[in-house]
């Protein structure tokens, strides 16, 4: 066991692309965790998609032996936190495994929304924060202004923040020195106290079962020990304990203040929720660490195979993904327009995109995703409350007491000149201003917003309002009742499931018009004219009409053409299988995709 005063546990937090992963690599290299040859760049970002998108999806750790200038060896655990808003809960839990945090800020960009949001999470978790100014090798770097930014926007002292280049390695030893000198060692009731460890992360391995990353607070975690997750109640015997150097290396036990992994032949990742407390099953701790709640999906959408024949493949693939991602939910769903598919729940939009991308890339599936929606909380007239995942399930208005929707607290950092457009957008989206500050040439706005509005098209609109020069971050901010109604889309008088949506009454008309127009453009002319309507209850709030087809006949068809032209017809006939019938008209399924597809 390592003495507590020789241990430093440090998280790295930053806005995306500010150099978190590069900096982690440099630290590993400086401590000899991997030699140059083994460093493939950004070691801690393991998964393919992470590498490509530069997003850290799950927490990654490295245990480093740092020989300080006084000759003493320190154990430094570095945790690279998930860098995105959808994983806020995971971030806040993994932060609790540490005593300090490096806040990386790109000296050419300054403070961004995620910088602020993550720094605040670290402050809330009682961490000592070391600001680090990165990319000072670049000509556009302005370390002075960045220091001032940090003080103003984040509210922590930054006048002696270290300036480094993670890329060239310049001044990187100063970061290690500061970690040892400036961050506190872990506190503990000691190695003999009952085991109390924080479940920092878990991932599924097909050979080992679930691999759990844990931070020991009190007591010891050793091979052969029977442990229990205090939240989920699952109890298992540990068959392997190790640390990440960052290569996995076996150890006999983990003592107070240490971070490492263990396996216990666990097949179901749902037993191992991030934030849970691990204790000894036979000599349990009196109470769990505070604040555990399993993260729940807040954004839902339908996922359908583009080719109905792939349904079973999709089901199997979703099952495989779920093995490694307990926060992702799915259940079978049928849509008349799209056939058989699944209603899936995610922590947020990025989580949704990542899952979709994995399904397409790793499992080779071609998917149709319906427009994402949020989880509503519905209270019936009789007082019964339930969660609504699919707008089509909203009961008749007369049966409803109230409908509540999730709200978020959003932080937006944008150039001063674009502030007006940002504020207008937030107002359009039913936002309530919480705070407005100016940070050297830029403005930071904090708003409360309904999540549903953000999920709808907020990102695109923010991007166009600020020409891409805004950063945005949010966290959930509870549920609130609203004047929410279900809007159905009717084609030829029949509601198209999958196109129904819950909307705020005052926004319904505009939303309805937009969907009708989109459908009008997407549906090819038919033999009959086709009315498209948006309706709330029985009331039509928007309508469009697709005029009947007027001209569609081969000009010429002679002896030589017969078979060739028939084959053209055959192709149309085959398409018939993918038609959905609305009274007199048959509409190709593809036409709905435009209206169902994510974004525009």
């Amino acid at each position, binding site marked *: 066991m390592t003495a507590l005063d020789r241990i430093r546990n440090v998280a790295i937090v930053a806005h995306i692309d500010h150099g978190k992963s590069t900096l982690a690599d440099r630290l590993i290299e400086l401590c000899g965790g991997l030699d140059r040859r083994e460093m493939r760049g950004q070691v801690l970002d393991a998964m393919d998609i992470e590498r490509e998108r530069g997003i850290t999806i799950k927490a990654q750790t490295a245990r480093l032996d740092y020989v300080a200038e006084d000759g003493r060896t320190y154990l430094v655990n570095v945790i690279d936190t998930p860098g995105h808003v959808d994983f806020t809960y995971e971030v806040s839990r993994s932060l609790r495994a540490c005593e300090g945090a490096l806040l990386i800020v790109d000296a050419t960009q300054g403070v961004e929304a995620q910088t602020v949001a993550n720094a605040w999470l670290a402050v809330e978790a009682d961490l000592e924060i070391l600001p680090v100014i990165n990319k000072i090798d670049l000509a556009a770097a302005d370390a002075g202004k960045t220091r001032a930014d940090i003080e103003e926007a984040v509210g922590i002292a930054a006048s002696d923040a270290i300036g480094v280049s993670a890329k060239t390695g310049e001044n990187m030893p100063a970061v290690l020195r500061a970690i040892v000198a400036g961050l506190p060692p872990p506190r503990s009731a000691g190695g003999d106290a009952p085991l109390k460890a924080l479940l920092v992360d878990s991932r599924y391995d097909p050979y080992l079962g679930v691999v759990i990353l844990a931070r020991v607070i009190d007591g010891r975690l050793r091979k052969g020990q029977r442990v229990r997750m205090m939240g989920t109640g699952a109890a298992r015997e540990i068959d392997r304990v190790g640390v990440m150097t960052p290569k996995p290396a076996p150890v006999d036990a983990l003592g107070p203040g240490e971070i490492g992994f263990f396996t216990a032949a666990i097949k179901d990742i749902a037993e191992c929720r991030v934030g849970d407390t691990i204790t000894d099953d036979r000599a349990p701790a009196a109470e769990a660490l505070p604040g555990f709640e399993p993260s729940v999906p807040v954004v839902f959408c339908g996922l359908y195979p583009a080719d109905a024949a792939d349904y079973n493949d999709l089901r199997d693939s979703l099952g495989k993904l779920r093995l490694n991602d307990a926060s992702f939910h799915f259940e079978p769903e049928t849509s008349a327009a799209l056939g058989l598919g699944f209603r899936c729940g995610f922590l947020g939009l990025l989580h949704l995109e990542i899952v979709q991308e994995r399904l397409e890339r790793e499992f080779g599936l071609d998917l149709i995703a319906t427009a994402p929606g949020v989880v509503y909380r519905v209270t019936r007239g009789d007082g019964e409350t339930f969660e609504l995942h699919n707008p089509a399930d909203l009961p008749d208005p007369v049966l409803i007491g109230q409908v509540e929707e999730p709200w978020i607290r959003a932080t937006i950092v944008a150039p001063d000149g674009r502030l007006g457009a940002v504020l207008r957008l937030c107002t359009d989206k039913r936002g309530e201003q919480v705070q407005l500050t100016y940070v050297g040439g830029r403005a930071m706005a904090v708003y409360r917003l309904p999540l549903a509005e953000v999920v709808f098209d907020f990102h695109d609109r923010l991007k166009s309002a600020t020409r891409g020069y805004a950063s945005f971050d949010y966290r959930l901010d509870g549920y609130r009742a609203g004047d929410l109604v279900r809007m159905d889309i009717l084609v030829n008088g029949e509601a198209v499931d999958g196109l129904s949506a819950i909307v705020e009454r005052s926004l319904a008309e505009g939303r309805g018009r937009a969907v009708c127009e989109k459908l009008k453009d997407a549906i090819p002319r038919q*033999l009959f004219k086709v009315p498209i309507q948006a309706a709330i209850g029985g009331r039509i709030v928007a309508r469009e009409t697709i005029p009947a087809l*007027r001209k*569609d006949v081969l*000009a*010429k068809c002679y*002896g030589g053409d*017969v078979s060739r032209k028939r084959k053209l017809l055959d192709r149309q*006939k085959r398409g018939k299988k993918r038609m959905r019938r609305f009274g007199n008209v048959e509409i190709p399924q593809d036409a709905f995709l435009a209206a169902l597809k994510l974004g525009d």
Partner: protein
Amino acid sequence: MTDAGPGFGVYVHWPFCRSRCPYCDFNSHVREAVDEAAWRGALVRETAHMAAVAPGRPVASVYFGGGTPSLMAPATVAAVLDAVARGWTVADDAEVTLEANPSSAEAGRFAGYRAAGVNRLSLGVQALDDGALRALGRRHDAAGARAALGLARRAFPRVSFDLIYARMGQTPAAWERELSEALDFGTGHLSLYQLAIEPGTRFHVLARRGALDLPAEDGQAAMYELTQALTEAAGLPAYEVSSHARPGFESRHNLTYWRSGEWVGVGPGAHGRLNRAGGVSVQRRQERAPETWLAAVSRRGHGGAAAETVAGGDRIAEVLMMGLRLKDGLGGADLARACGPGWEARIDAAGLDVLAAEGFLERLGDGGLRATARGWPVLNAVLARLLA
């Protein structure tokens, strides 16, 4: 057992043109020189071969199509017609059509074709406007077209000509003027085609790039409706989607196609059809490339490339696709003969009910089917709905 049904025809393809029109996807080729003697010999040989394949049928029509058949020497036409007469019995009133381009029209040639036995000329006028003809890549101008028409009318008892409408930048008003002039010529037959953008043509590439200013669907429909009204008023109503005739002047050869009759195809890329009882039809296709075809004929007496049996649902689709192009549709007996028994069970019955109830199709008293004036201009969609 054979079943000729509505007559038997011989189609002869001449695959050469002076230049390639940018909208055309016919089997047409531009060659510096053509050894016409060799071609004459090959066409004659293949005609004899076809007579052996499809013996015993009285020939009701012969059609020289192209390409540009008016580039053939009259002697070649005569030699082929002789071969037809040797191979089959030719009806006294047989219709013998030749397609001609105005740019190669000469009084001398026309007289030669007439002497060889051609009794119907189909002239590819396409437009009566110089700018439009240039845009269509044609080698003649409007004056040339008018002159060729005059020559043709003097030389042949029956004359038809083709026009293409819904061209780039064309308005319904302009088409109305052009069509009125065309009707004033007083021919007994007119083929009026909406411009089709065919894959593999230069127009296709241009259209995809958005570089062809084509009328939108509503404009096309307006021109189509004008066409119906004007031709009807002039006594040449449509008897087929794009074919207009004074009664009695219909193209008998083309009717054989639309009624799913039998024909043989001679020459490069020509298609033929021979039917069997029970709704089975055999399609023959000749080699498409002129040189390949010529070499095949000299080696083995014919240029056959493939034969394919069409039956069941495919056959029904073809019969309806062709037959519903006719104003009169197809009678119950014609349908049963061409499609085989039980064909009704193989179409989309619910679709037929909707189409009939909404007035796109009409059920005939004898069990036949007909597309109505409402169904005709949207026949592709009607067929897609009708075929199971």
